[in-house]
């Protein structure tokens, strides 16, 4: 794994951490939000994170399955989120080395582009199925998601860091 600006050496990630983070993201997505257009897609964010950090462990297959779960849970066309998450995972893996080279702020900018592309694909699918354009507020969700990137990075790397600190003591 290539280290970015922060030169801390992290412990290898545990699979249980990844599974728990995805469960938490799905949970956050299923919360009864007031206006869903401005709520970031937490699953997409966490997926992008693991694809960037662990492209060997989390890939297109995981993204596709998560997409299907989201589709069934939301009652939309089966395959809509699956398609957009697959594309998101591909782009994140493809750009992972480039993204990790930057600091957290610039990483968030890259992630904003990824999330916007994923959202655009989902929107295109929905419009192809006959829905009207829901207005430009739809871009708020991905941008907020990108703004949460530093917090997500800190939180999701916590298990690897904490173990390291305890070992040092």
């Amino acid at each position: 794994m290539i280290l970015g600006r922060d030169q801390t050496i992290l412990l290898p990630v545990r699979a249980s951490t990844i599974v728990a983070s995805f469960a938490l993201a799905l949970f956050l997505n299923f919360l009864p939000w007031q206006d869903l257009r401005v709520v970031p897609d937490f699953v997409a964010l966490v997926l992008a994170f693991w694809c960037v950090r662990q492209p060997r462990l989390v890939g297109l297959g995981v993204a596709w399955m998560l997409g299907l779960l989201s589709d069934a849970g939301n009652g939309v066309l089966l395959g809509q989120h699956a398609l957009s998450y697959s594309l998101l995972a591909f782009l994140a893996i493809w750009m992972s080395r480039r993204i990790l080279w930057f600091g957290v702020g610039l990483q968030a900018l890259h992630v904003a582009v990824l999330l916007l592309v994923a959202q655009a694909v989902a929107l295109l699918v929905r419009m192809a199925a006959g829905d009207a354009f829901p207005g430009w507020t739809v871009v708020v969700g991905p941008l907020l998601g990108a703004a949460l990137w530093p917090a997500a990075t800190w939180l999701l790397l916590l298990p690897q860091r904490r173990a390291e600190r305890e070992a040092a003591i």
Partner: protein
Amino acid sequence: MDHSPPPFFKRGPAPLARLFFFASLSLALLVIDARFRYVEGLRSWLALAAYPLQRAATAPIELGERVSGYFASQAWLIEDNERLRAQALAYAQDAQRYRFAQAEADQLRRLIGAAERLAVRAVPAEIIYTGRDPYSHRIFIGRGAIHDVHAGSPVADYAGVIGQVTRVHPLLSEVTLITNPDQAVPVEVVRNGLRAVAFGGGASGMLELRYMPANADVQNGDRLITSGIDGTYPAGLPVGEVVRIERDADQSFARVIAAPAAGIDRGRYVLVVSRETALPERPAEAQPGKERRAERSRRARKDADDSR
């Protein structure tokens, strides 16, 4: 991908090939789901997998409601009790009058030989989840196939129809609201019995009566109820009230907009109504070509018999 690992570290097919594979799989699923509905089983299993997370996500809100309800003040309860008792008295009188009217109506109906309407069965359900997609006009209720909910049953709240069960999963069902543009409800104007079909108005949250002739006898404030002649909705459930009529000379149809009677986007509890009595089987459509020919030959034979 100029920095791909040497061949002996290769793991699986190239990422681009993988993207292509999963994208085409998704597109195939989309087409199958949108056009043919062959994947309902798969969807049920996936929904079952997502169910615990959905339940967990709505649990804190339920808990909060319960706790705040527990601390409701005593004074308020007493006041409420008094009010309710007064109301119950009024209702009791109404109920007596209703029973009388019901008996009378039964007699009259028997007199004119109409089929007796049997009571409808209703399953109370809680709205557990609204879909993440705000434009799908769908909600999820916490009653499914194991609670004997069937696809196609109408769903109502205390004020009127809110939608129809469109998919049944084992533990929950999906309800399409009447404001969904693809959802149609056969209605009848209470004032004069005029029949019409109400379609959802989409994001406006209104209903639209389509295909009404420009000179149709509809007025603002007309109440709409289900007509019951489709065999799906029981008759007499309130649907909405006409709020706007646009009659345009160069269009043959009038544009009639109605506001839904039920709280489509409010409330937590609904009733899944199912009709026990089935209407008689709809007669099969006549086959245009064959039938007519058979008819004609029969008639020809009859004519020949008569002339003989």
